């Protein structure tokens, strides 16, 4: 690893400790532990059915593990709901693109800004911190009234966020499809829009579930470039699930390998690639 990469990788930001997840009789994850460090690109790989997406769902708060804990930014928890996860800075994309099909690209990415979209009254209340908590309902009401007119502060707010979203659109080079309803876009572009929506949340931890699935070589190169740029420019920690070994080995700082719900390897890409257990899991036993 180069000096530059060492510099940007910081302390542990997410620690997964002895997680076990069951659905009735099916054990999706058994006793998996690993750490993700601030600013690194971390890949979760493994054969199909290994529990990778379930792992992301656990981090995200969609599934609640029966055992084990997750500590994120120092706070230990086991149960969290997805919108709470989002509020603490975790954003995510899905294997089967989960975009809002009735809306345009622009609107979809704008929804990513919703957490940060407050009217001026609410922003003032938040600035007061805990002192301002009892004022928040009143602030929400005042903002609502401004919303009704879509004028003045409400409109300025809207425009401010629009500028942020336009920057993301520029970054991802999707200006031409700004006003297209996402249902009409090809799969590769939909994935890019979903990435844009996740980026609009200004996350600290970005979870990508097979971002390159179904893409050709050029599209994969584009997406890899985007992932690296996001990590570079914004310092976002990225955890991704991916099947394409070339991509994984190229862009990851560290890799964890799951098989049948258990961790079988953990470390730098080169080490993992040479690990005999990993080879066995992917290629089967040699007779």
């Amino acid at each position, binding site marked *: 690893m180069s000096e530059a990469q060492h510099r940007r990788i910081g302390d542990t930001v997410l620690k997964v400790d002895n997680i076990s997840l069951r659905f009735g*009789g099916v054990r999706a994850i058994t006793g998996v532990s690993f750490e993700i460090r601030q600013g690194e690109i971390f890949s979760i790989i493994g054969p199909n059915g290994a529990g990778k997406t379930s792992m992301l*769902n656990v981090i995200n708060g*969609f599934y609640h593990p029966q055992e084990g804990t997750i500590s994120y930014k120092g706070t230990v928890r086991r149960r969290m709901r997805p919108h709470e996860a989002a509020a603490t800075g975790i954003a995510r994309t*899905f294997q089967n693109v*989960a975009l809002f099909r009735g809306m345009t690209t622009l609107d979809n990415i704008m929804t990513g800004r919703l957490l940060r979209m407050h009217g001026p009254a609410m922003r003032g209340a938040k600035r007061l911190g805990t002192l301002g908590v009892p004022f928040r309902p009143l602030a929400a009401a005042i903002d609502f009234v401004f919303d009704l007119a879509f004028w003045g502060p409400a409109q300025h707010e809207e425009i401010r966020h629009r500028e942020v979203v336009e920057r993301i659109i520029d970054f991802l080079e999707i200006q031409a499809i700004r006003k297209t309803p996402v249902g009409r876009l090809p799969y590769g572009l939909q994935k890019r829009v979903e990435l844009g929506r996740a980026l609009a949340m200004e996350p600290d931890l970005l979870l990508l579930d097979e971002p390159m699935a179904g893409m050709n070589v050029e599209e994969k190169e584009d997406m890899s470039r985007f992932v690296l740029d996001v990590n570079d420019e914004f310092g976002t920690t990225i955890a991704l699930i991916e099947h394409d070994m070339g991509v994984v080995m190229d862009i990851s700082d560290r890799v964890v390998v799951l098989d049948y719900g258990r961790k079988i390897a953990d470390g730098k890409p080169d080490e993992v690639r040479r690990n005999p257990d990993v080879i066995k899991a992917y290629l089967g036993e040699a007779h």
Partner: protein
Amino acid sequence: MLDFLYNLVVAPWVGMLTDPLFLGEVVIGGVLAGVMYALVALGFVLIYKASGVFNFAQGVMVLFAALSLVGLMEGVQVNYVALVAIVLAVTGIVLWSGEMALGRGIGRALFAGGVAVGAVKLGAGVLLPRGIMLGAAGLIGAGISFKLPLWGAVPATILIMVALAFVIERVILRYMVNQEQIILFMATIGLTFFLEGFGETVWGSNVKKLDIGIPDARLDLSKLALPGAAVAAIFAAAALASVALMFAWRVRAVRSAIDTSKGLVQPPLIGPASLFFGMAGLACFLARFFVAGDAAFVKGKAEATAMLFASLSWFGLALVATVALLALATWRGRREAAEDHGADVAPLHYGWFVALGVAGAVAVAAGIVWAVRSGILINGFELFAAAMAAILVIVLAVFFQKTRVGRALRAVADDHAAALSVGISLRGIWVIVWAVAGIVALAAGIIWGGKSGVQFSLSLIALKALPVLILGGFTSVPGAIIGGLIIGVGEKLAEVYWGTAIGIDAIENWFAYALALVFLLFRPQGLFGEKIIERV
């Protein structure tokens, strides 16, 4: 305030327990109303199970079937020209929406022909003055009129419902194959309005009486007589069984049954329900001694015996229900545990269950005998309704589980696209299922219509059937029945006892929905439905 609380919480129970004969009648009335709801709900379940469509028009199909039946029985005057027009038009529509281009062309032509003929008839009727009508319109005015007896009208109506299913599939469903459920639901709302208007335009909208030859009168069952010794023996057995229920929890087999089933199968309401019935029985018995009023003391041996029988039969019912459900739960639980852990689950002694179950059944029988002898009133017509419903349910259950078509129906309900890809003809299945639902609607229509006459309000039954479905689960045939029973009995009890106690009437109007709401919040899939899992 205290008065109101007393009326709300205590008085209804007192009312129930101080006159168990009347309570029995109310419950039976509720059961029979519930059977009627269940029949309508059954139609819903069928269509939902097999095509994933929530058919809001089921209620109006009941009305339509009943209207057709009565219309045919009262006598139909079919004008030749009108007949030709209708046949042409309907055949035209069906062919028009077919798959072959040639068929489509012919269909269009036929439909146009039908419309033209109909227009001529209508125009002649409107424009030609009466005199000419009567005179020269021998052609246009002539027709046949016929009347069908019941045994002829029923098959004819079945044919009509099958034709309706065909038309619905051709004209509506085939265009909606991949639409979301919401859109399909709204389409059935549209169908409801259409069928209602259509039915009443064709058959007229005045109330009609439906006579199916079964007297709507009380049955005379007093001839059932049992010797005194037999009655005493039954009484003793029932007493023992009921006592046993109180201590059932201490029986190890029962406890281990609950343990095995815990987490794997949750028989809903067993505990509370059986406890309720058991306590009801006990309270029945004790009530006479403590309830205020002129009945502070038991008046005579006959009344004491009556109370005893009443209480014991409630106990018995509770016992039977508990045992049955526990046994079912245990069986399923053990099966799943065996799959999970291998066959290392401790063997259970089913003997206990059998013993308790038999004792409970005996207690119930005792109660029934007593009730009959005391002159409880059962309506013959309603008994017929219950019997018909039971037969239908059994036939349908067998149909779904055992036949090839039934399996295809279940496949289609699960996933349209997958069913198509294994070669199941989606559209054929839909026609079948809607036709079956139509026949069920006919059965419901006969019963409802026979009871209260065939009229517009019949279609409002659909709205009552919704809570039944919530309770029972959308995809469960037994669930529809049990849900219907619960709602039927609950409604009547609420109306008769709570209504008179607090002085509010017409609780019936919304009781079912309140119950459904409670279920929606805590168990949306109903008692027997499948749990809805959302995958991300």
